[in-house]
């Protein structure tokens, strides 16, 4: 089979990218979580029990690869030039030798650690974006991802108390999130499922027109904060006009259908059908109609009729993050490694700074061919860091190191030392006793 490659993706370029730019050492330091150090508390087998998997250019899929250090990984990647590298869980034993262990009686081959991960993909939003669909994204719909990052990142930190959260552009139409705190890595499937469900507001299926159902006399504080701090603003100031959510009959009908009270829906429908004729071009029609919508629904006479939540439900439907739940719920899901190149778009999976995620522009993310051009521009210089700095991937790597890797490794070092000392203390105590 001849792989279909986009112009931005070329296997020779990929080889060059792995040869000169791909940050192997950073990646390995990250997934070693401090166990590559010299401290006696380090678990030397840790990295070697991690599953990597490679997708080769002819759709060959190599699972259960494992490596003991940066060099091993680097050599293997350079040799095989995978179009995609996935990272899996840390297993109880070296996944490459799982068959040998399977002979033994008590040795179960099972995942023991895995980052808590989230996968958010724009294709899940096709019913709430009109600018593009399927695999495409543009600056008009990208804010949906920005919202997702803001909502999930805030809750991961403020609610769940996680500190080491890495956001990565998936290279095409979505984002990945890696929660790397020790506690997160050791969550059971049930606990992962609980967190995923905590984030879930969508119910039902394609057939029920109202997907979000918010009941109860108040919103849970997490939903309330998300609504007031993120969703409402993005809906009113960005998506409403950007996506023209109320501009045409077809579109506003979709929203009117979410009102449980038919008489109110038809009241608004009447107004909007008229206003099509009389609308002054001055104000944006979406804004005008949304104001009318809110006014009618939140006016005193309807307040009591269980419609109070309707405005919020609509905002949630059009903005709230849509997670791929299965990815988050199970330890053994694989997820593409940061800094891979997306084979369809040629774009590098660069980290996204959650604090500045509204500035992130997927259309300006460096592409493979761009990087190669930059590399060729100055001829050959052997210093790797020099290469990095010259090319536009340098910023991405700097961000990865400064905002994620360094604080993470510092915490890991402390944890390793502390748990080692604790063990020492315990063994001393038990000896004395």
């Amino acid at each position: 089979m001849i792989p279909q490659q986009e112009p931005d993706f070329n296997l020779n370029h990929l080889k060059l990218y792995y040869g000169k730019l791909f940050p192997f050492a950073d990646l390995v330091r990250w997934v070693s979580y401090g166990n590559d150090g010299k401290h006696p508390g380090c678990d030397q087998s840790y990295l070697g029990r991690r599953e990597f998997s490679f997708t080769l250019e002819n759709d060959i899929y190599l699972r259960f690869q494992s490596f003991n250090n940066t060099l091993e990984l680097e050599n293997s990647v350079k040799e095989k030039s995978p179009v995609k590298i996935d990272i899996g869980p840390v297993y109880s034993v070296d996944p490459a030798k799982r068959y040998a262990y399977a002979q033994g009686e008590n040795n179960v081959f099972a995942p023991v650690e895995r980052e808590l991960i989230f996968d958010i993909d724009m294709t899940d939003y096709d019913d709430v974006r009109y600018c593009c669909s399927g695999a495409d994204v543009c600056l008009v719909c990208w804010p949906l991802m920005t919202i997702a990052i803001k909502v999930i990142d805030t809750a991961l930190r403020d609610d769940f108390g996680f500190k080491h959260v890495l956001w990565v552009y998936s290279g095409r139409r979505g984002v990945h999130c890696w929660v790397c705190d020790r506690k997160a890595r050791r969550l059971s499937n049930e606990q992962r499922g609980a967190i995923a469900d905590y984030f879930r507001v969508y119910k039902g299926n394609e057939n029920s027109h109202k997907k979000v159902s918010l009941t109860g006399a108040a919103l849970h504080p997490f939903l309330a904060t998300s609504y007031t701090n993120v969703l409402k603003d993005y809906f009113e100031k960005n998506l409403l006009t950007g996506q023209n959510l109320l501009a045409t009959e077809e579109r506003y009908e979709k929203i009117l259908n979410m009102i449980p009270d038919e008489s109110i829906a038809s009241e608004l429908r009447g107004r909007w059908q008229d206003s099509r004729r009389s609308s002054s071009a001055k104000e944006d029609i979406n804004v005008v109609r949304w104001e009318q919508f809110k006014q009618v629904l939140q006016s005193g006479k309807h307040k009591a009729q269980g419609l109070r939540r309707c405005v919020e439900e609509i905002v949630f439907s059009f903005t709230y993050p849509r997670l791929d739940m299965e990815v988050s719920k199970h330890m053994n899901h694989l997820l593409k490694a940061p800094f891979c190149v997306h084979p369809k778009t040629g774009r590098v999976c660069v980290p996204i700074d959650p604090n500045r995620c509204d500035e992130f522009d997927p259309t300006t993310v460096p592409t493979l061919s761009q990087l190669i051009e930059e590399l060729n521009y100055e001829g050959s210089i052997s210093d790797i860091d020099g290469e990095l700095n010259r090319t536009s991937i340098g910023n991405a790597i700097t961000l990865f190191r400064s905002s994620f890797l360094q604080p993470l490794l510092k915490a890991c070092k402390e944890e390793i030392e502390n748990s080692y000392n604790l063990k020492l203390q315990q063994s001393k105590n038990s000896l004395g006793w």
Partner: protein
Amino acid sequence: MEIVRPQSRRNFLSSSNDAVSVPTIPLYRSAPSLEVRLEEFESFAIDRLRVLKGISDGMSRGKKPEEMENLVKDLWKVNMRHQHASDVLNKDIISHFVLRLVYCRTEDLRKWFLSMESSLFRHRFRVLNAEAQRAVMEEFNLPYRAVSNVEFESIKEKLGQVARSMGQPAPTADAIFYRVPFEEVPELVAGRKVLISQGYAYVAMNQIVSLIATLFRSQLSKTLVLTNRKWTSSIREQEKHRLTPIVEALCSSYLGPDYSQSREYADISLKDIDQVAKNSFPLCMRHLFDKLKEDHHLKHGGRMQLGLFLKGVGLNLEDALAFWRAEFSKKVGLEKFEKQYAYSIRHNYGKEGKRTDYTPYSCSKIISSTPGTGDHHGCPYRHFSEENLRAALDRMGVNSRAMEDVLDKARNRHYQLACTLTFEALHGVPCDAGINHPNQYFSDSKKILQSKQKDSST
């Protein structure tokens, strides 16, 4: 535990003194090393059985949580006292372990015992003082600390939000909350039933109760299986002349809620039965009923499930015969009906034989049945495909809003909850006790419909 002949009562529980000073609940972790007189073996067990059966009755009558609380308190007081105050704890422990032996022996018995003991435990735990509660929590390895007043004040508003989001009143100043690492209460996290902040869930006292009750239940569930193994592998044989007969006799006094004779809403008559089936039968019975009308036949499992249910709702023998005859004769002819089927219907109404067999089936029995092809018995929430269930609920008149919740519960294997939600959707009234028995569904439904009728006629 050692069972001894009368008179030789010696050193009972060594810890009985402490037990008096700190009134708490034993967790029944291991069989006590104490000696029990044979007659106490039996009488203690019967006393406890009275408590459990009272609870079971209360539950199936649909008593509200507060009512249950009082009920359990009274039942305990009446039955579990002992003339020597210091022996109360022993009686508690002994009776529990004896009944464990009695109820370990089949899946159905275990289920019933498990749910009654858990419920008993839950209610007893609730009424303990804070100190004793903490002691129990510590025994379960839950070293949680209660939120201080200062901390409570600072998160009060958010706690109120959480409560209101679940349709509950905001907590008052004396409410007790525990600060628990969120990963230890995954169910509460998943349902957004707690405030979560900086890695900790703020768990209300009543939520702790269910946490503890869940732990208690799963611990008991495991040990019941072990007890069963011991029973079949050794005890039954060893004790063949002494304990085994007692254990087996105790068991046949098992009834669960007794729906074998309907009292309250007796005498539904044949002419009303179509209407009544439509309004007040749970889905399992409604389905059998409809199938019978359609096919004029039901296989054995279906005949038993529906027949005993009808007996329970008060269809008398004569009407029952007429009812079955009317349908079956259309298919198999009158003669064959009288020959083959009438006998077993009479038999179901007969008093001879082991009576448990002729008690209307409970939900757990129906849910655990295994209908084969051509069978229509069983619990639709469990045994139907999702499509069929959706269609059946639709026919019953469940609206689309409730539908998804019901299907969701069924999908997650909470069949009785799914049934409860259906009940609520159709009657527009909450059913706090949940559905445990098709006949309970029926009598609760009748109750509601009658009171609605009264309301509208006055």
